[in-house]
């Protein structure tokens, strides 16, 4: 009999994604679900969906979930984790959610070294509200609120979250990936797994940034969107591990005890 090599992750509910065709959110959800299954943390995980296209993430992920107001996920995650240190707490956030309205909450939860995980979807626009400029919109990129393209003198520069947060002493593991190719998807899954493992081991704050296509608001086909991540977006947001202090933190813990 043929071996089954692909099936629905156990903690991905039997629901049809509401995401547009070619959207990176669906892939990211699936990866989170696979990692939760593989690490066996479905019973202890608590997820926090954002205000954004992923607001309904609780319809898909079969773990305990509590909605956050726009940008407040990391504050809520901090409160949950402090009261439930054995829980595996993650917030799932878009770029508007994390880097604009919620920058204070994400910055300071990172700086406190909260032992939480953030899955950060960077699609360079505000998806849910119809394609306005995000903090991560790149220069010259056209959005509904930058119809002439993002202009550095009036709109400033794209915010580089991994670079910013990895400069904080409180953070332990920070990586930027992209889900625009099978290899990228595999890498992203590894990063998500590493981030959750970092939390399970009690090593502190972890964040995975995922460059994620939004064909609808980029006004491109899904295939062109994937190409654009390679040709343009990842030039502004280079992929890679920005910080991995997991071994160092482990060692210093062992030395202390």
């Amino acid at each position, binding site marked *: 009999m043929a071996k089954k090599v692909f099936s629905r992750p156990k903690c991905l509910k039997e629901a049809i994604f509401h995401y547009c065709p070619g959207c990176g959110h669906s892939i990211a959800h699936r990866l989170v679900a696979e990692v939760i299954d593989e690490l066996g943390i479905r019973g202890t995980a608590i997820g926090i969906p954002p205000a954004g296209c992923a607001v309904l993430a609780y319809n898909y992920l079969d773990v305990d979930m509590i909605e956050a*107001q726009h940008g407040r996920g990391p504050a809520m995650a901090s409160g949950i984790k402090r*009261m439930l240190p054995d829980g595996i707490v993650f917030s799932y956030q878009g770029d508007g959610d994390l880097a604009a309205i919620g920058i204070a909450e994400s910055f300071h939860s990172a700086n406190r070294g909260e032992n939480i995980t953030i899955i950060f979807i960077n699609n360079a626009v505000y998806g849910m509200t119809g394609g306005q400029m995000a903090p991560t919109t790149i220069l010259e990129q056209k959005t509904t609120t930058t119809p002439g393209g993002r202009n550095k003198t009036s709109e400033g520069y794209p915010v580089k979250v991994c670079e910013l947060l990895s400069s904080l002493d409180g953070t332990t593991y920070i990586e930027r990936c992209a889900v625009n190719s099978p290899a990228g998807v595999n890498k992203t899954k590894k990063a998500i797994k590493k981030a959750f493992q970092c939390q399970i081991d009690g090593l502190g704050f972890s964040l995975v940034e995922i460059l994620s296509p939004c064909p609808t608001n980029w006004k491109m086909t899904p295939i062109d969107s994937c190409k654009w991540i390679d040709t343009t977006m990842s030039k502004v947001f280079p992929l890679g591990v920005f910080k991995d202090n997991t071994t160092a933190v482990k060692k210093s813990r062992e030395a202390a005890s």
Partner: protein
Amino acid sequence: MNKVLMSGNNIIGEAAIRAGCRFYAGYPITPQNELTEYMAEHLRTVEGGVFLQSESEIAAIHMITGASATGARVMTSSSSPGISLKQEGISSMAACELPGIIVNIMRGGPGLGNIRPAQGDYFQATRGGGHGDYRTIVFGPATCQELADLTMDAFDLADKYRTPVMILADGMMGQMMEPVIFKKPKPRQYNEKFMLRGAGHGKSKIIRGLILDPIDMEEHNWKLARKYQVIIDHETLHEEYKTEDAKLVIVAYGTSARIAKGAIKRLRDKGMKVGLFRPITLWPFPELKLRKLAEKINNFLVFEMSTGQMLEDVRLALQGYADIGFHGRPGGVVPTPAELANVVARHYEKKD
């Protein structure tokens, strides 16, 4: 039990911890810093206690919301400008039916205002404050003993109705010292099914306020409204002071009510029969109790450290039933009982 002498801010902190509060988040602002500092000092000495100095009042309210979702008893505190920032989270807690205590030690406003005691946040507190169709239970304590008792009761009510409860005091109440006795807290009653602690081997839970279907959202609104009606029917508290023979009744809460009692003593010494009606719950406002008083008394005077906010609730209760006068000192001014006595005397003579 022994009496202890403590300041208002510290009393709230001590009462909260005794009531089982195990998570506090807050951001410094005068005149309530002593409460934040009390929680920092004392929560770390109780098992499972967590204090977090947040990056903002917004973060604080969402931190306590998260902690509350896990089933912990939680509190945050601030003063007027910071309470404005918390409104997003208070609305969210009401929507998600999560219990939690918010303390507002009011100061002068609007804007940055000043750091003197004031009562200008009555509308914000009693009308919901944030967006959407919801209410917050609001206590207006007037003595240190009440600060202790009502803080403890606030936790019970928040659990009972799964809703945020606000303690609305002012800078004067926060700073003043009086001897208090801390009562024994009641055993907590809060069902585990409302707690988010990981699904284990069971069904996963969702806590949310986002309800996209308007018919479902409407039902949620009515469900909350029915809960608020039960609160209105069962939870109003008020005090009547020397109203039995009164010809004029002052309506005042919190610090204003303390001043009113001082004024009443002076007026009674001069033979004027003046009493006090003091709402203790500001929402629900003890409307029917006040109207009942109008069956025998026709002359009321509302006194607030604002330009007249509770005045509107008094009008809703008494318009058409009695005459309503008003005296207000906004902006952080705390009038003396002598000043109030003069004002009341003029109203008293006008009618008598």
